[in-house]
């Protein structure tokens, strides 16, 4: 097994049209790991949620740039979605299911979906500075075969 990491970086204007491109591109990149079709669906969902949040919340449907890095390292997929938008005042509150600052149109499900679909994620945010969400997923097959994956780097 190779230890070299591989990555792609995508950057695009904050437009709803680009959300579909972003999740598809992320899934195509992810398919170089041994993910099942269900797992690729999970990755599509998580990326869709993170990018949609950048478009509708960070930039409030106005101009802005969304940057995505997808990386394969140590047998796992790491995806970060970054914006330079308005930021999240209380990240712990925002992560709770059904918590939303736009209750007319939104259900507050995005972070909940990300949590269900990925193995883990964390959010760094600064009000007025922007938000960066980092999401990690390892193929379930690899989890079964080598539970102590970090030892493979010896």
């Amino acid at each position, binding site marked *: 097994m190779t230890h070299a990491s591989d990555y792609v970086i995508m950057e695009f204007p904050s437009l*709803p049209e680009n*959300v579909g491109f972003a999740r598809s591109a992320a899934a195509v990149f992810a398919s170089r790991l041994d993910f099942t079709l269900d797992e690729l669906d999970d990755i599509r*969902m998580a990326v869709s949620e993170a990018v*949609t949040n950048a478009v509708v919340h960070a930039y409030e449907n106005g101009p802005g740039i969304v940057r995505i890095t997808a990386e394969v390292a140590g047998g796992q997929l790491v995806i970060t979605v970054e914006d330079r938008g308005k930021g999240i005042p209380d990240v712990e509150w925002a992560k709770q299911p059904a918590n939303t600052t736009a209750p007319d*149109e*939104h*259900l507050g499900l995005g972070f909940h*979906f990300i949590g*269900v679909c990925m193995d883990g994620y964390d959010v760094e945010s600064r009000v007025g500075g922007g938000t960066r969400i980092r999401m990690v997923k390892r193929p379930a097959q690899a989890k079964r075969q080598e539970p102590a994956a970090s030892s493979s780097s010896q």
Partner: protein
Amino acid sequence: MGASMKVLGETLIVTLDGELDVHSASEFRAAVTGAFDERPRLRNLVLLMHGVTFVDSSGIGAILGRLKEVSARGGRLAVVGLQTPVERAFAMSGVLKRISVHDSEGQALASL
């Protein structure tokens, strides 16, 4: 995303195709709300979703928004034909408690 509509008595039947996300959800919302506004007699909505390959929280939000719209008119919403990823999204969101899902259009119409 594609959407085509037909009217059957008091029921609007919408066929959806493709991916229902933040981009297509606004088209979907506008199409259904427009049809309801034009025809005050309409009160039920049936969504034929066999051709939908992806739904995220924005899509679920748009569907629940239509549920509110038909409820306000004293009507009902029924959904038909969920592909596996779409069904998983519905399950994750918890909306299956509030939305009736069917295998066929006939079954959905009978449930109204």
